[in-house]
């Protein structure tokens, strides 16, 4: 492989058979290129679909209280249930290992917010740091509320993009003081939310701050949890339902609610509404992998076909070389060396070209169902390696056949 003499021989052969080299290279290069684009579009599709369907985390479980409907342990029916901080702690401490993100929340629906001469009425939510992920809020400036803000009840606020536009127009709000219900809050971040304008017309403050400012004590209005994502919908649904049941049981016991009471604790399990998305995404994944593997297969078959044709075309040359003293192994080495070199270089070119195209054009693609197509570099490189290896294996048999050609047969005049 590292014999300089053979490299010279290969380069000479390659440079003097430009068309053949080009055709081999083109089939490999275009195969890889198409594969990269396909994988990219598949990711873009997934991004697009997720974006279309999901305002909130698709597997979020929300818990908010209601009124009891059954008389229980001396309490009358119709009792209003109030959740407190320690109810949330009970769940996170009790079954924390199953939870991915969790937050409790206290909100007021119409808080007057003013900045200089601008003002408006917005929903103010006291939340925990994880809430960002439950809501799928994307920070576009500054940061979200963190654990320390919560601990020391900072008067910080993270505002939605719509709020920013309303109050600040085009200026940056970071570090500015705004008034919420007459109290000064410092803006630390701006978020966008795939849920759109409605969900961007909110502001988030640390839960502890909200509870103090709005005189809520340790009251909370609701809590939300997500579980680690599962690829398989049925499994996700099963785990999530079991989790919801466990929460319900814990809360009912603590709050002295009848086990059969159906209105005291409301649990909305978003995953039940997202079956279609799960199915769509997994179907798409299967589809694109199928197409990708088929493309790869076509590429491999193409390479081996070309190798066969090359050996056929070079039969006479091989015969001459053998008559002049080429050993069979040197024929195999020559053909394989040439083919691996050509496949590697052209495959790499196809890969780079595809990646560059995705990188340059990808971010501009924001169609309804395709968003930011991109490709996992490792996957792209491993397909390239796979293609080269397959090309070498596919090329080996024609090369071996070439090495077995008898010089007298090859040199017999046509």
């Amino acid at each position, binding site marked *: 492989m590292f014999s300089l*003499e053979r490299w*010279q*021989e290969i380069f*000479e*052969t390659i440079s*003097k*058979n430009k068309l053949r080299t080009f055709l081999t290279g083109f089939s490999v290069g275009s195969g890889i290129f198409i594969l990269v684009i396909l994988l990219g579009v598949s990711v873009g599709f997934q991004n697009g679909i997720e974006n279309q369907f999901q305002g909130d985390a698709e597997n979020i479980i929300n818990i908010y209280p209601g009124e009891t409907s059954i008389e229980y342990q001396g309490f009358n029916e119709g009792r209003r249930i109030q959740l407190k901080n320690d109810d949330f702690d009970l769940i996170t401490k009790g079954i924390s290992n199953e939870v991915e993100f969790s937050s409790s929340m206290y909100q007021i629906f119409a808080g007057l917010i003013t900045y200089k001469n601008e003002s408006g009425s917005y929903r103010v939510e006291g939340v925990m740091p994880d809430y960002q992920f439950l809501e799928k809020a994307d920070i576009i400036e500054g940061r979200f509320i963190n654990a320390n803000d919560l601990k020391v009840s900072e008067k910080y606020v993270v505002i939605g993009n719509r709020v920013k536009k309303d109050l600040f127009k085009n200026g940056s709000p970071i570090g500015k003081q705004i008034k919420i219900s007459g109290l000064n809050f410092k803006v630390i971040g701006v978020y966008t939310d795939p849920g759109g304008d409605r969900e961007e017309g909110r502001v988030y403050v640390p839960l502890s701050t909200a509870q103090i400012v709005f005189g809520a004590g340790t009251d909370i209005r609701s809590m939300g949890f997500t579980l680690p994502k599962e690829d398989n919908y049925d499994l996700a649904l099963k785990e999530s339902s079991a989790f919801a049941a466990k929460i319900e049981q814990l809360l009912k016991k603590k709050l002295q609610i009848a086990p059969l009471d159906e209105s005291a604790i409301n649990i909305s399990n978003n995953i039940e509404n997202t079956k279609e998305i799960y199915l769509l995404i997994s179907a798409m994944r299967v589809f694109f992998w199928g197409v990708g593997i088929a493309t790869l297969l076509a590429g491999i078959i193409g390479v081996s076909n070309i190798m066969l044709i090359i050996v056929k075309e070079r039969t*006479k*040359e091989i*015969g*001459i*070389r*053998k*008559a*002049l*003293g*080429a*050993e*069979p*192994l*040197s024929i195999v080495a020559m053909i394989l060396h040439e083919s691996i070199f050509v496949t590697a270089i052209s495959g790499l070119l196809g890969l780079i070209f595809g990646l560059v195209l995705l990188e340059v054009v990808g971010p501009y693609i924001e169609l309804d169902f395709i968003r930011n197509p991109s490709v996992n570099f490792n996957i792209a490189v491993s397909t390239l390696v796979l293609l080269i290896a397959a090309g070498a294996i596919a090329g080996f048999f024609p090369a071996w056949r070439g090495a077995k050609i*008898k*010089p*007298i047969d090859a*040199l017999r*005049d046509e």
Partner: protein
Amino acid sequence: MDSNTTMMIEIKDLHKSYKMGKNSLHVLKGINFNVKEGELVAIMGSSGSGKSTLLNILGMLDEADEGSYTLDGVPIKNLNEKLAAQYRNKFLGFIFQSFNLINYKSALDNVALPLYYQGMKRAERMERSMAYLEKVGLAKWASHKPNELSGGQKQRVAIARALASDPKVLLADELTGALDSTTSYEIMDLIQQINDEGRTILVVTHEEDIAHMTKRIVNLKDGVIIDDKFVNQVRAIQNV
């Protein structure tokens, strides 16, 4: 012929048959034949006489069924492909009717090919090949591809290539078959010069005039030698 010159080719009772479906075609039926160093021998015969088969066996491109073949004291039998390739490279130079040059390589690179398979370094290879191209009068054409050369020039390149590895024996198969008579005689003149320098050469031909430019004519018919005689060599240069 001096009696103290070494025996280059010794063939004893050589048999070869080809299987054609159920029938077997007996092509060589017991050939006995010796060639001393420095001889220039023509092997003649009509088509089907077995002369090409004999040449292929001499060239280690094919193997005999029976009998023995010794080349410069080395018994040639049970060769695997690798060994046959090494022996061909070391002992033999081939000249073909259709030249068999590699058409994407220059004349110089074609001549250098046997040396590449000897593992010779590039610079040395090129220098040596150039010397042989000069010998056949084509130094000026070194960088030309075969398709830019005339038939006679192609055969000269092929001869230079056959000589490049300094083989014991040159084997020529109808080397003038694709050439007009003037060019044929020029090529034969070159062959005679090479023979004059002491190189052993075997020429398979069916042309009487070409055969008479050698020193010995072996006649084959139906797989046996019917005639083997030394002749007075006609110098090709007289006919050019």
